[in-house]
């Protein structure tokens, strides 16, 4: 009986020959990522343990990205608690290097790894063939102390891609289409596995964007087979030598799937997710003309160099609409410096955009960039829940980098071809 990628990774981490969906196994984790959203609580719980200890400090990566630079005294106290703990225990610590998932993908994630992140979008690591999943800080603490955890082997939904995305349509539109199709809990407890000839035509940024957003369909993780595109990304980050070839998995042809979805990429259109759910999607054209107050190009979903290139190409020589705030937030220092050297940041600045330091920004709604009462935001961020971007009476539309940039120029929701 064949296995899916998720099953193969769990089998490896559990030290088993085979596993099947529905089994519960104890696994050894390869990496444990935690950010400033919850680390201060993890520290408190750690200190309350009878016999506090860390199984393997080399597997821990702690990243400050949600509120940076810090904007309140309470946050500052929580950051200090996290930082002091990391220093004391010798935990690898990043502050100011970018959004956690981007930093992890650039510097740490490798194919075949099983990774817990105290952040739901940890499923992004599937773009490099790693099983990343979001956990709470108690789960995190248990894994940190014991080096292990239990996992329920998820069923897998297979998404087969064929063809090519039309011009002006992006991976972001594809994943919004899929979430709209299967709904916000359509993949609850399940793994989403992407494959097919069409996947080869999607660049690394697009793949990360797809995997990252799978949690919005409830998925436990998202996975893609490692191919030349993934290997090239690791090579660009000087980590191709770290690949363990025996951990590079692809699904067996006779693997069992809970569901198989076939998508012809050429049929995908620019999509917008309307307030207040990610699965509340429609054709971007159907909401064109809705007035916006702010536009956001960034986040672990769409703050990569490829996304900035798309935005910069659209806005070059044009201006942000009067009184609209267009936030451009590279996902990491690496992306920032690349965009700087390519002149993209200058293009955005020239157009009147606000270029912020790499952080989570308005995607998480408690950092610089929040929106006010009655305001409307169009965003490449991950979520559009009520109040997610700031005031509880505000509205968030999710879209691709192209649609967001076009909207910033028009001052209302618009697609690339409308500016």
């Amino acid at each position, binding site marked *: 009986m064949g296995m899916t990628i998720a099953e193969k990774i769990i089998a490896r981490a559990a030290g088993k020959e085979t596993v099947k969906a529905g089994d519960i196994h104890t696994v050894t984790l390869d990496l444990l990522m935690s950010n400033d959203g919850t680390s201060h609580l993890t520290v408190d719980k750690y200190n309350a343990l009878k016999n506090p200890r860390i199984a393997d400090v080399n597997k821990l990566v702690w990243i400050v990205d949600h509120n940076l*630079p810090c*904007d309140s005294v309470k946050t*500052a106290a929580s950051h*200090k608690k996290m930082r002091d703990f990391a220093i004391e225990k010798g935990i690898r610590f990043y502050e100011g290097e970018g959004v956690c998932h981007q930093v992890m993908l650039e510097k740490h994630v490798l194919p075949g790894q099983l990774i817990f992140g105290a952040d739901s979008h940890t499923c992004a690591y599937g773009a490099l063939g790693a099983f990343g999943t979001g956990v709470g800080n108690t789960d995190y603490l248990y894994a940190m102390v014991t080096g292990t955890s239990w996992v329920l082997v998820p069923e897998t939904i297979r998404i087969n891609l064929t063809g090519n995305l039309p011009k002006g349509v992006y991976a972001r539109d594809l994943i919004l289409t899929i979430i709209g199709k299967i709904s916000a809990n359509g993949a609850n407890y399940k793994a989403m596995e992407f494959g097919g000839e069409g996947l080869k035509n999607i660049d690394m940024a697009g793949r990360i964007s797809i995997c990252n957003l799978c949690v919005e369909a409830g998925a436990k993780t998202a996975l893609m087979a490692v191919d030349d595109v993934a290997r090239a990304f690791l090579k660009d980050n000087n980590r191709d030598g770290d690949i363990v070839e025996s951990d590079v998995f692809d699904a067996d042809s006779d693997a069992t799937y809970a569901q198989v979805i076939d998508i012809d990429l050429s049929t995908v259109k620019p999509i917008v997710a309307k307030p207040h759910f990610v699965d509340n999607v429609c054709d971007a054209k159907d909401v064109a003309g809705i007035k916006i107050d702010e536009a956001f190009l960034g986040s672990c979903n769409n703050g990569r160099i490829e996304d900035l290139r798309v935005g910069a190409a659209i806005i070059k020589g044009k201006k942000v609409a009067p009184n609209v705030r267009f936030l451009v937030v590279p996902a990491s*220092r690496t992306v*920032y410096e690349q965009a700087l050297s390519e002149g993209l940041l*200058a293009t955005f*600045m020239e157009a009147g955009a606000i270029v912020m330091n790499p952080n989570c920004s308005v995607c998480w709604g408690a950092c610089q960039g929040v929106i006010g009462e009655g305001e409307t935001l169009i965003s490449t961020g991950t979520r559009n829940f009520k109040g997610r971007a700031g005031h509880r009476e505000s509205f968030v539309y999710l879209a691709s980098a192209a649609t967001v940039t076009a909207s910033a120029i028009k001052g209302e929701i618009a697609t690339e071809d409308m500016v």
Partner: protein
Amino acid sequence: MGQTIVEKIISHNVGRKVKPGDIVTVKADYVMLDDIMMPFIVSKFNEMGFSKVWDPTKVVIICDHMVPASQTDDIRAYHISCDFASKQGITNLHTSDGICHQLMTEAGYVKPGHVVFGTDSHTTTYGSVGAFSTGIGYTEMAAILGTGEVWMRVPSTIKININGTLAPNVMSKDVILKIIGDLTAAGATYKSLEFCGDTIDSMSQSSRTTMANMAIEAGAKCAVFTPDTKTALYCDIELDDFQSSLVGDEDAVYETVLNYKAEDFVPVMAVPSNVDHIVPISELKGIKVNQVFLGSCTNGRLEDLMEAAAILNGKHVAPYVKLIVTPASRKIYMEAMENGTINVLSKAGAIITHPSCGLCCGRTGGILTDDEVVVATNNRNFLGRMGTSKVKIYLASPKSAAATALAGVITEA
């Protein structure tokens, strides 16, 4: 009898010769309104019964304290700013271009000889181009918006004469900090500071701006420099006869004249929690820091970023120390991108934010908590300004700040 610079500017404005102590009514050449005060200004303006500003071309509205917003209610001030501008036909509106005091001269508003009021105490900054400018409250601003004029008392002048060459590790920030220490925080209250001497003549426009900006920290009403060719170049004008006359006369009456030798200045910091509590860095060496802030209307200009970058080039800030860089304006940020400064700072580990007031105004940009230490290039180290009242704030020059970021402890450049 001769006149000081500020007496000449006010005389020119009111059309007759004035002397210190005279109460006069001046006409504003420009007024500067910042976002954080806009809700209050507009409400007072309405309460006073005005409907139209006296001259929309002379009103400049700048959103800088709360852009991008970190709290949802901050947006209210943004909308009030944009709405008031649109209703009053004010086109001088900057929603995300940088800090007000940088933009007032950089964007071409304030020129030598102007009389300018702003709803921020650091409005003294524009004295660097030979203007009279001072901070006022929002009620008074509302009255000026309606009438275009305001009463004031002609200040007496303290002349500060500096001659010689500054040491390479001494910046104009060290000079003004030392002077504030000597004058004390209230030593120049109600007075004008007039800077002159060959050290001042050889200073860049940017360095002079740092000094004018901080005059308020000695309580001064304003600070003025004689406009020269550098000023003319910066303001993109040719000085007219009046502007060229803005020199303190030989026989002008000064309240005090302070003479300094440039060679006597050393790198200093203002230590917690008073701007006039000045200590040479040689006596502070080794104090551990958690964060360094390079920015603000005091020291967020291209020259400041470049001086810091020269020290940081090819190196990296100390582990666990955050270096936060907030350029003073969009133009400065873009120039610093263009000439490679931003790349050097980023490679050294700096966190570079969008141009705004940032940490200096204490609402965002790197707030700290109990027992943390920050070395900052801005203008105030008051208790609680950057977080809790147990945060220790040291004010320094960009060079000293950069050297400190590298070492992780207070260090002389």
